[in-house]
């Protein structure tokens, strides 16, 4: 048998990389324009992301919230509900999770961490579920509602961290940092000292497999994807389409909420912001979308994608110090990657259609030769 090279699959896998290369190229032009040598800038970026064990650990720490948010994005985008609310869902999850730790101070650590994660999961689910219900039952565009929910969550956080949840140690100071009190040491996720690499990384990796199994090996996951591919056919097949839309957004929010709790219990040990919109999340709610799109909305593909974008973020800090390039460059490049990746989808669609055309032609040829086959229902068996 001849070895068949899966050119199509190879091409699909390479597309995001080409998109990133293009984005970096545009970035290089921008750097030239700003009178920075792109090679110096990008060398600093790579050095900052992978130059030492500690740098690699930092990259993984940054990748963790991206992966968790990205897993949720996989679920919702597979269901064709577009959750842009990762930022807000992270925040609400973190608020609830932090409250658990600040309230149950004398409970055992493992129990508090578990409860906090549950609380974050639920908080994110609520913040994602509201736009889900509005989308399914009131036909409200979920992109807009999730973006509004982001803004509301940011204001809620600013209010709580400056008021009711403010760190008592900050209360007496003139310029108060908006942050909560520090969580007891027993509640910290274990770390791989001396780095900041924490157990949340492992949790996210395990959950990536769980989400894969959920989406491709369970009835619920199958139905979410069926609704995403073709809501009308799903309705005919008896799937309660609206309920699965809500479920997709709800679960998507839940993973983002978890990301918020992991950030608090694994990295900062308190909830802290700087008053800006991305002060707490570091933009992970948006960058998680980029990572998931990059990973073709596949949970396993999202793992390397998250690491890549985590590396870009960590490297950007180094680039800022060494080459005085503001890390906002990375936000701009991430936007370009999104644009390039969704634009490149056209080739995949074209090929699928071509393939479909060939199948139809073959079927037509068969029909000429034989009696018509029985009516074929949509491919809809769970």
């Amino acid at each position, binding site marked *: 048998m001849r070895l068949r090279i899966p050119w199509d699959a190879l091409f699909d896998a390479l597309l995001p990389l080409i998109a990133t290369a293009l984005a970096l190229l545009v970035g290089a032009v*921008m750097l030239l324009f*700003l009178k920075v040598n792109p090679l110096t800038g990008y060398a600093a970026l790579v050095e900052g992301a992978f130059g030492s064990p500690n740098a690699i650990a930092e990259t993984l720490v940054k990748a963790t919230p991206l992966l968790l948010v990205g897993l949720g994005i996989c679920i919702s985008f597979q269901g064709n509900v*577009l959750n*842009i609310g990762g930022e807000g869902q992270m925040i609400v999850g973190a608020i609830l999770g932090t409250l658990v730790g600040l309230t149950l101070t004398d409970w055992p650590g493992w129990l508090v961490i578990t409860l906090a994660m549950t609380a974050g999961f639920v908080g994110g689910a609520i913040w994602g579920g509201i736009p889900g219900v*509005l989308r399914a039952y*009131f*036909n*409200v*565009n979920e*992109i*807009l*509602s999730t*973006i*509004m*929910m982001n*803004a*509301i969550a940011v*204001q*809620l956080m*600013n*209010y709580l961290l*400056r*008021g009711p949840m403010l760190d008592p140690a900050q209360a007496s100071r003139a310029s108060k940092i908006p942050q909560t009190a520090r969580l007891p040491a027993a509640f910290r996720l274990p770390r791989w000292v001396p780095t900041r690499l924490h157990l949340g990384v492992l949790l996210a990796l395990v959950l990536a497999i769980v989400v894969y199994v959920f989406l491709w090996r369970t009835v619920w996951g199958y139905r979410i994807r069926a609704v995403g591919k073709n809501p009308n056919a799903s309705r005919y097949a008896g799937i309660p389409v609206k309920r699965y839309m809500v479920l997709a957004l709800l679960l998507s929010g839940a993973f983002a909420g978890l990301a918020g709790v992991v950030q608090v219990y694994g990295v900062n040990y308190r909830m802290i912001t700087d008053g*800006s*919109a991305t002060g707490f999340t570091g933009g992970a709610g*948006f960058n998680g*979308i*980029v990572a998931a*799109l990059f990973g073709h909305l596949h949970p396993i593909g999202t793992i390397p994608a998250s690491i890549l974008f985590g590396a870009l973020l960590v490297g950007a800090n180094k680039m800022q110090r060494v080459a005085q*390039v*503001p890390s*906002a*460059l*990375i*936000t*701009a*490049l*991430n*936007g*370009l*990657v*999104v*644009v390039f990746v*969704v*634009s*490149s*989808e*056209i080739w995949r*669609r074209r090929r699928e259609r071509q393939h479909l055309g060939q199948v139809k032609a073959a079927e037509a040829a068969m029909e000429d030769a034989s009696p018509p086959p029985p009516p074929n229902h949509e491919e809809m068996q769970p």
Partner: protein
Amino acid sequence: MSGETLFSGAVLVGILTSGIRLATPYLYAAIGETFGQRSGVLNLGVEGQMLLGAFAAFYVALVTGSLWWGVLASLAVGALMGLAMAVVTVNFQAEQGISGIGFYLFGMGMSDLLFQKLVGTVKTIQGFQPLHIPLLSDLPVVGKIFFSHNWMVYVAYLLVPLGWFVLNKTTLGVKIRAVGENPKAADSLGISVGAVRYYTIIQGGILSGLAGAALSVGLLNVFQENMTSGMGFIAVALVYFGAWKPLGVLGGALLFSMVNALQLWMQVLGIPIPPDLAVMLPYVLTILVLVVSVSKVRAPAALAKPFEREE
């Protein structure tokens, strides 16, 4: 301001005056978006276009000393962003919602990057001054509320009847609506779907750029990172609220800006509401408004659907 209450005459005039003024960026952006959506294109990159437009206007005005060059720059930047969006949505038939978010991230990062590299610290400029309209501006109360603004405010309001006219009374408007309702039929009648969408998307970009300029050199006389804080997205929501009609969009923009003005004046007057919660109001309102308006009116049938000619 102490001693004043929310319902004294002077304060009411103040709220109405700032409400009229604050609606300006919403109007530019939302009228542009209305044209786009009527032709079947959902442009979610408005926020990014606004930010880049706001920066371009501010920076060019700062360097050249001319506000007019600034406005021209915001126009050019908006047109370029629109062109890019048109290539992506028309030629590459990309998912419009997601590519819009991509353009948003690009505009946000880019405007911040350029600001940090080229300006560095917060600087203020002398923005456009109010136009004195003979007689009208001198009227008591009414003169203050309606006729104490700069030209960018008046042009924004003029766009409403102009937009209505173009959409409903011109051949171009018919083409735009046909392309948004049934691109296939429009195509078979010889209308170039791509060309019409190119036009609406680029026009939308230009108006979003102007919306940014209206904010940076028309209202606040400053540029700050992420200074639009969601206004571009609210503008998109206003198009739904306004049922894809310029007059409806005007109503929505006024509602929002009045709520915002009220919220600002409550802070000025020291009414004890935490400012963070007060700032939340417009966003909560957006969601409520979407709930009550969207389920009633039908969107353009081809909204957010890429079009490809069948061979």
